[in-house]
């Protein structure tokens, strides 16, 4: 079956590794990846412990479908207490690393303790070893991959860059050069543990079912139901920019506006259109392990562009702009230079930073600069003005390297704005910067941001269709609640959420899980599994000190009406939606799950915190 039934546990304090059995009762309740990783984290650490302390754990978790031939079946998640948020973090990545870890024989990799010197973890099936990493400490993700795979090009590597080493609050874990477990600062947790990288080679394979031929046919049949993949393949996720900009939900200049008048310079069409030098940004699309969609963008920066003209190392093709990156390193900063945003995105991959939080923090700093809160002296002479591609590139370089004013950007927008006594300018929830949707024209997304267990996020619920059809808040709480549970389940399978937008329904996911997992997984059970995961994450956050008062939005979204678009004149009506959301969740008015709800889901009732 497609659980390998094994955990690799690595204690960095004692420098000991051992293999143990997976708790199959928990696997039946939490499935895998996000759910199972969160369960282990919750059971094994005190949620009140510091994110950068030795008490925090860092869990790499695969799902039962990771490493199979189900389309997109290569996902893994990094679960820990987030350095950016202080909340439970679960960052999901594609590429090939997750499948390789699974094929090495492990469902979960649990990292605990803290090393006194830089190390990396070498895994070749059951042969596991902590090795000295002093020769790659300080190196970028790209150089680290080259150096560690010098003797074995088949190794798959997940690592942190200098940003993670420097404890940048939004540092990420990058694998396969440009796929990342991006959000919430999981890379800073890895950096605090002095774990530079995990290099894995897996050849053990796995058994999906007693009848592998029938299993293969089922996968092929279900993969063929992904009939709606062309849009993602042609335009990538950047297809969304024209939609949100038309609708009036593209956060622009730190959410001061909701439409970017120069979006046509950074959208999917711009990426595919030759510039005046005849250079085209997009080279080709790319797919992760087993993926039939291929939304990834592989791009080149114009060699004549100011950002790289003296830097030939950036002249090659690499991971290009996704919608979120183009928003954060484009519209959010008012920058309409696709090559500048691509360069900043390259640096995020190379140095290991989350581009959403980076762009969101730079946008906040730009507003602080333009309103006089920050001066030239503060920024080291950088004119942090909205629209300045030069400033974007320069401050991204400094943040990546932990130099100059970049050290303050590396704190994230919540701490940066708090330091300068203007917390209202941080467009974040629970310390995590907004994704690329404004919560005034998209009321449900505002509620989703406010209630997300890992801070503002567009991938913790799916109110898109409902929001695009109406700004009326009627029914939003229910849509958000149901989709949060559904997403929590899909995030626990080993599959990519984009399969949902490409044609799979809940019954398709159930069929896939039933093909590889023991037990009967019907729609009711998988949704209940998602709900259990959501409530477990909530319990973690409550014990970490995050409750109702953190389920909120920045003042701008609650009090400043949108200036244009479908939501013109609207603020987010969180105050009206939140009580209904709590009621639908079976939570008390103070945002704590009721005893009845926890018992129904098989969770411990311990609401004394």
């Amino acid at each position, binding site marked *: 079956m497609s659980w390998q039934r094994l955990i690799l546990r690595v204690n960095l304090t004692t420098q000991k590794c051992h293999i143990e059995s997976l708790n199959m009762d928990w696997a039946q309740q939490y499935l895998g990846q996000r759910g199972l990783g969160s369960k282990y984290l919750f059971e094994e650490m005190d949620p009140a412990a510091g994110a950068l302390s030795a008490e925090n754990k860092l869990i790499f978790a695969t799902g039962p479908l990771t490493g199979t031939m189900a389309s997109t079946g290569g996902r893994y998640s990094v679960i820990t207490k987030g350095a950016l948020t202080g909340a439970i973090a679960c960052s999901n990545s594609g590429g090939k690393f997750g499948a390789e870890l699974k094929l090495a024989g492990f469902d979960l990799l649990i990292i605990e303790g803290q090393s006194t010197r830089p190390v990396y973890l070498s895994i070749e099936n059951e042969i596991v070893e902590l090795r000295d990493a002093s020769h790659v400490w300080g190196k970028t993700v790209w150089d680290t991959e080259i150096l560690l795979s010098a003797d074995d090009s088949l190794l798959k590597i997940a690592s942190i860059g200098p940003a993670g080493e420097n404890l940048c609050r939004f540092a990420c874990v990058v694998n396969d050069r440009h796929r990342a477990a991006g959000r919430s600062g999981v890379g800073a947790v890895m950096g605090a543990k002095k774990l530079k990288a995990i290099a894995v080679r897996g050849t053990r394979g796995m058994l999906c079912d007693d009848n592998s031929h029938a299993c293969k046919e089922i996968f092929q049949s279900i993969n063929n139901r992904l009939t709606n993949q062309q*849009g993602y393949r042609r335009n990538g996720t950047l297809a969304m920019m024209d939609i949100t900009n038309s*609708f*009036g939900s593209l956060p622009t200049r730190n959410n001061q506006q909701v439409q970017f008048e120069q979006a046509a310079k950074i959208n999917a069409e711009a990426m595919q259109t030759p510039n005046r030098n005849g250079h085209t940004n997009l080279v080709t699309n790319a797919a992760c392990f087993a993926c039939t969609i291929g*939304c990834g963008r592989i791009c080149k920066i114009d060699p004549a562009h100011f950002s790289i003209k003296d830097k030939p190392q950036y002249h090659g093709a690499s991971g290009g702009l996704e919608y979120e990156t183009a928003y954060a390193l484009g519209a959010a900063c008012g920058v309409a230079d696709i090559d500048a945003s691509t360069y900043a995105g390259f640096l995020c991959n190379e140095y290991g930073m989350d581009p959403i939080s980076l762009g969101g923090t730079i946008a906040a700093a730009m507003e602080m600069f333009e309103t006089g809160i920050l001066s030239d002296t503060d920024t080291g002479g950088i004119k942090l003005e909205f629209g300045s591609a030069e400033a974007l590139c320069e401050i991204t370089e400094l943040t990546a390297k932990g130099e100059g004013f970049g050290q303050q950007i590396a704190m994230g927008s919540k701490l940066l704005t708090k330091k300068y006594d203007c917390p209202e300018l941080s467009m974040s929830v629970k310390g995590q910067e907004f994704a690329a949707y404004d919560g005034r024209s998209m009321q449900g997304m505002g509620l989703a941001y406010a209630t997300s267990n890992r801070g503002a996020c567009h991938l913790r619920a799916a109110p898109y269709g409902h929001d695009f*059809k109406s700004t009326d808040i009627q029914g939003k709480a229910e849509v958000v609640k149901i989709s949060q549970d559904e997403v929590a389940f899909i995030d626990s399978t080993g599959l990519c959420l984009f399969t949902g937008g490409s044609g799979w329904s809940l019954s398709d996911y159930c069929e896939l899980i039933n093909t590889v997992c023991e037990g009967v997984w019907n729609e009711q059970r998988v949704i209940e599994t998602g709900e259990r995961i959501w409530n477990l994450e909530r319990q973690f956050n409550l014990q970490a000190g995050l409750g109702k008062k953190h389920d909120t939005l920045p003042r701008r979204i609650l009090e400043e009406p949108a200036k244009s678009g479908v939501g013109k004149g609207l603020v987010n009506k969180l105050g009206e939606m939140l009580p209904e959301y709590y009621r639908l969740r079976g939570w008390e008015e103070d945002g704590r799950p009721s005893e009845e709800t926890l018992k129904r889901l098989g969770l411990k009732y311990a609401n004394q915190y």
Partner: protein
Amino acid sequence: MQISIKLLGELHQYLPANGEFNQSKLNIPTGLTLQKILSQLKVPDDLDFILLLNGSLMQEQEYVNITPKSGDEIIIFPPIKGG
């Protein structure tokens, strides 16, 4: 009269032959309803989509009554999920 149309996301496949990337100019008789324009574009009746007329959200029941004017812009997109 002439109107502008944008067909975003997967819907670019319904662009007229003179369309570029995801937009086109469309010559239509005065008084044509949104419903008739959608039929002319061969957008299937059962397709789930969102329609903006000059930036305003239109509800499906309005398609049979509303007649765009010369120079108007229609944007149509599917309820795709984000990334």
